């Protein structure tokens, strides 16, 4: 079976700044991969490259063996490549329900209907109301996104991602800004996803990384410097120097 997603020798620079250097990796069905690295390492940039938000200076991306480097953002989404944003990008003036409903309707190809009331379509409603209640957002369904707290908005990012039923899901720090007692809902939602999709999560919170990931990629200064199991990561010398430092020591101490 071919990989769901592959990056082959991808590089990108802004002006003189090399932000992504010769990155190679593969995501296979069932993968749960964490992408970690210090601030400014180029993690978000890598997601932007994968989704087509920015074009690589060099290198290629493949999905299921087909090259996707030059196809448009919406075409990639239609192939099942879905992301969430680190800084939320939502339909701010629409309700929470509408935000999720739009994703569902787009997936179901019914956004070209002109005269039916959108959010209350029964088949759409059932789905968004389930997604929202899983994330504890059901009571906010008819509130405008712009009126909500930042942590709640973060969860809507995830809700939209789930609504698109991805084959490859890229989560850019889904837990950042989410209140501590809400954060477990994120992992629960990910655990409910079909086993055969690939999930890549950028995350700084190492506890979350250990609970989620079976494989860890470490990015530093645009290069993938390590790939391995979560346990190997904390042991690896270079990773500790580049990033983990205190965390690994703290873990060892306990």
């Amino acid at each position, binding site marked *: 079976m071919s990989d769901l997603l592959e990056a082959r020798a991808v590089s990108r620079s802004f002006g003189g700044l090399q932000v992504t250097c010769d990155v190679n990796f593969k995501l296979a069905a069932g993968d749960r991969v964490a992408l970690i690295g210090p601030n400014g390492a180029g993690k978000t940039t890598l997601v932007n490259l994968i989704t087509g938000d920015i074009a690589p200076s060099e290198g290629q991306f493949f999905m299921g063996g087909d090259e996707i480097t030059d196809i448009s953002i*919406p075409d990639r989404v239609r192939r099942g490549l879905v992301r969430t944003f680190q800084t939320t990008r939502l339909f701010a003036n*629409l309700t929470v329900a509408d935000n999720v409903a*739009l994703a569902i309707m787009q997936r179901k190809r019914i956004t070209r209907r*002109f005269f039916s009331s959108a959010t209350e379509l029964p088949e759409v*409603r059932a789905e968004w109301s389930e997604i929202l209640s899983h994330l504890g957002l059901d009571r906010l369904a008819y509130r405008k996104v712009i009126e909500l707290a930042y942590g709640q908005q973060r969860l809507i990012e995830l809700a939209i991602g789930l609504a*698109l039923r991805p084959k490859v899901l890229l989560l850019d720090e889904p837990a950042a800004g989410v209140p501590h007692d809400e954060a477990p809902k994120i992992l629960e939602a990910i655990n409910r996803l079909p086993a055969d999709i690939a999930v890549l999560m950028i995350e700084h919170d190492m506890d979350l990384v250990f609970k989620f990931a079976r494989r860890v990629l470490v990015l530093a200064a645009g290069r993938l410097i390590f790939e391995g199991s979560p346990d190997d990561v904390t042991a690896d010398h270079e990773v500790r120097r580049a990033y983990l430092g205190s965390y690994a020591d703290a873990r060892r101490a306990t």
Partner: protein
Amino acid sequence: MSEIVVTRVPHKRSIPFGQEAAGALSIIALGAIGYFLYPDDLAFLTRLIGIAFLVLSLDLVTGYCGVATLGHAAQFGVGAYAAGIACVRGIADPVALLAVGVFAGTIMGLISGALITRFRGLPQLVLSIAVGQLVAALANKLSWLTGGSDGLSGITPGKVFGIFNFDMYSRTAFLFSLGVLVIVFVLLQRFVRSPFGLMCRGIKDDDLRARMIGVSIYPRLVLMYGVAGAVAGVGGALTAISTGVVGLDSVSFERSAEVLVMLVLGGAGHLWGALAGTIIFMIFEHIVAAANPFHWMTLVGLLLILIVIFAPRGLIEPVLALFARLKRKGSAA
């Protein structure tokens, strides 16, 4: 894994077709006020309805899609000229002329949309002005067809449904226009709440987010422009039919700018905002221009400044907020 309790979100309470019925009845009520209390002003009120279509049309692209345009009169003017020319050349049936206007407006909308929505921000605005000016220049240059600067006259439509003659008091014209407005408004109310309409509002909010859920934005905006063109075409055709003339003013830059002012005044992104803006602006202009023909623009400017300060998102916003508060109180009680 522990069992998950899924609490269902309660349905939004709403009466089927309630909004549409309320919309239709409100417009009919407003029309009745005009018809019975101001029988001498029906020609003016008919013109107002014609412009209302253009403001509604502008609302579709600006209020619902976030497209910046100062050339929207082109859609209206092309509809007006098409209906006028068709009438001069022998089509007399008003409904058929309306169809001609809608068709021409749609084509013009699709062409404008295809050009204008390729760009964003200032280039988009400039392009919209250029398209508007191009149409205005063509209307002027093709005088054998359009009457040029003299305007297109001699438009004498037949009876509505073969029964009602256009009378000199504009009664037929007014009622015909009002009837068409009710139909178009109700259709638009459903349209803006449809999946397509909702997606347009999403695109307005954040087009990158829209693309990231798999939406191809450009074809949608062009399509929306086509719909807007159809609505503007209705207004143009109605104005041509009811006034019997089509002048260069119907495609002018001033017209485009004026309807944008009306939309902002009423509240972009709400159909009622478009209507309210048109009604308030045109009646204000009508009264003040009669009282003081030299300074009415100053007063309009003053009015606008006040509104931008006290209701920056249009007059309809505070009204809607009030309605929402009453409704919440009602459901809490």
